[in-house]
């Protein structure tokens, strides 16, 4: 009768606590040195190559990867701790985050050995920035409608077309993208797309930044004009990108970044209400903290199951669905709870500024990396409904 959803009560092992202390100490030093301001989440998109290298030096990039590629063979749960501490501190992770979370694992799985030996150690040293080329002007949620073409040529492929909404493309060294190598077939509309590694520094690529309503420039349009990709940069099987949606996706969906994006407003709310809140504020904060705690338990649970070799695809999608909706509504809930905050509260201006930014950020949270609609479709499929 019951559907089989599992959220094992995973605890972070003791080694994580030592690591957490180290990360906190490191971030405190960086803040003290002026590398970034934890109270300015709006600057989180700024590029910071030196910070990136220092994170690499600490051994906090490619943490779970084999040592031969520069990795550290540590657990997913240890990586989890680093990710959440960076996120909560509003550290400038933009430069290395995608490479560490998504691109590296894809290369590990599909790239030829010499490319792995070349690029992975550089990711681990925090030297390279990746972007992901999925959406196109006429294919957003529906990735398999992509039209940007890879045409076979001598020793490689010529790319023509454009990608859009590619985060960090303006500062990226590489992109992992899907391009059309064959038309879809009648039986399988997802057929015909192939995954490639693109060197963004080679000719034939124009990056046009797109301004967001937050005033930031995270997104880009990337136009390819006869851009050449060598044969050995094809990742995985030809025409079969659709098969390569793997359990990494589960990890990508359920990380702490899926519910902590606007967390900073909650901290500031607690500061603003002070040590003796009225019933209204106390209840509001209590509920938000209970919801946050629950999501973190869900997210840690998925990380632990992944570490144990399971593939909690539905559970991961649920974490993202609930988490992104929560972080999207959080600024509005905090705005309400702060409505009667004494304006002599020391952080009043900070809270106002943060709220403004968080409210503007909110709409994208349930769109990026798979919309609510797509996630619910995946969950429904997992429940056996479709």
């Amino acid at each position, binding site marked *: *009768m*019951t*559907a089989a*959803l*599992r*959220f*094992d*009560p995973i*605890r*972070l092992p003791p080694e994580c606590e030592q690591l*957490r202390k180290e990360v906190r100490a490191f971030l405190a030093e960086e803040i003290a040195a002026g590398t970034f301001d934890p109270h300015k989440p709006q600057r989180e998109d700024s590029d910071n190559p030196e910070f990136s290298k220092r994170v690499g030096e600490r051994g906090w990039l490619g943490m779970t990867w084999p040592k031969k590629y520069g990795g550290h063979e540590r657990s997913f749960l240890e990586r989890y*701790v680093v990710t*959440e*501490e960076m996120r*909560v501190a509003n550290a400038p992770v933009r430069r290395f985050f995608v490479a560490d979370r998504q691109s590296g694992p894809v290369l590990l799985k599909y790239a030829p050995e010499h490319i792995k030996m070349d690029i992975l150690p550089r990711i681990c040293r925090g030297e390279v920035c990746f972007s992901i080329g999925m959406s196109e002007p006429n294919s957003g949620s529906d990735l398999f409608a992509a039209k940007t073409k890879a045409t076979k040529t001598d020793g490689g492929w010529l790319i023509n077309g454009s990608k859009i909404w590619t985060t960090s493309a303006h500062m990226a060294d590489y992109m992992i993208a899907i391009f059309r190598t064959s038309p879809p077939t009648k039986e399988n509309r997802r057929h015909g797309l192939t995954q490639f590694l693109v060197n963004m520094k080679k000719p034939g690529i124009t990056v046009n930044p797109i301004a967001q309503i937050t005033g930031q420039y995270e997104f880009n349009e990337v136009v390819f004009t006869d851009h050449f990709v060598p044969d050995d940069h094809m990742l995985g099987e030809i025409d079969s990108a659709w098969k390569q949606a793997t359990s990494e996706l589960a990890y990508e969906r359920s990380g702490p970044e899926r519910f902590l994006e606007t*967390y900073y407003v*909650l*901290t*500031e709310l*607690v*500061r603003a*209400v*002070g*040590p*003796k*809140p009225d*019933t209204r*504020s*106390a*209840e*509001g*904060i*209590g*509920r938000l*903290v*209970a*919801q*946050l*705690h*629950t*999501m*973190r*338990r*869900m997210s840690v*649970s998925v990380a632990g199951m992944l570490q144990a070799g399971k593939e909690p695809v539905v*559970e991961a999608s*649920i974490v993202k*669905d*609930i988490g992104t909706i929560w972080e999207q509504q959080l600024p509005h809930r905090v705005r309400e709870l702060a409505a009667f905050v004494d304006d002599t509260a020391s952080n009043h201006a900070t809270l106002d500024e943060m709220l403004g930014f968080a409210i503007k950020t909110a709409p994208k949270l349930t769109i990026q990396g798979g919309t609510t*609609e797509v*996630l*619910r*479709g995946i*969950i*429904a499929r*997992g*429940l*056996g*409904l*479709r």
Partner: protein
Amino acid sequence: MTDADNIVAETAERIFADLADGQTINHDKQGNWKAPLWQALTDAGLPLSWVPEECDGSGTSMAEGFSVLSVAGRAGVAVPLAETMLAGWLLAQAQIKSPEGMMTVAPASPRDRLTLNTHGTISGRARGVPFAKDARHIAVVTSGIGGASIALVETSACRIDNGLSLADDPSDTVSFDNVKPVAIKSAPSGFDQNSLLLMGALVRSQQIAGALETMLGIGVNYSGERVAFEKKISKFQAVQHNLAKLAGETSAALAAASSAADAFSSGAPLDDALFLEAAAAKIRCSEAAEKGAAIAHQVLGAIGFTQEHILHRYTLRALAWRDDFGSESYWAVELGKLVAARGADELWPLVASR
């Protein structure tokens, strides 16, 4: 600890399947199923799961006990298994032996308080005490100048005003008028009425999460059978989204409840982090009960609104359980106060403490 590894939970599951099938008991208006079920549960030692062998119990681990509660929540039955377990656990805190038969606990609400009088009797009123009417004994926590005590009281020594929960389960007002306990001992250091409420909240969280699992199962099955506009309703995107949301609420409840149960089972001291686990479980599970029950009913439509269908056994109980041992609003205020008192910069360390 997961159910599959757990022989105690398996036993409970088998007993409920054999003797408390939802369809069967829903049609048995006389409640003839209750006595055999209770007998079987007792024979398997489940009501005294949390009572050590030296106190005449089964000496099952905390974790196994919690998984029995999860099974009981999934079964949504109206017998005081959770209450008797909780009573046994409470008595064991003071090394008081558990008697045979059904038990319950008091107080069951943070608004009430029972007082230990100077001459050793107990006075006060406890409202919303689950199954008091059916219980032979009540395990109580009293407050007094000398600190908290734990006592065993015969129900017959109290006045019981019958009430009903939303699910029509007994939820009674128990009045203690200089009641002489059967046994009484000082509570261990640091243990008071709040400790009982917190444990009660956790017990209810487990049951709510279990009930949500069943609601989800019922909803998914129904949507795969019911046809409207010439297709199975599971093929409608609106129904899919509703069930995906129900799966989300069920997951949140499961994760919150099982995390808290695990934390309590580890024997960790009752610090802020453990308080967070239990309070968050009750808050989040209650929120999930409201959203989840609404979705399950929406998916089932009119049929789910009838006595005839089993759905209400789970939805109404999950909603009723929100009220026991402190509502989600109560725990949210308590948790909010704790968070505020610790201060903004101590929030993240609290959340990330495990």
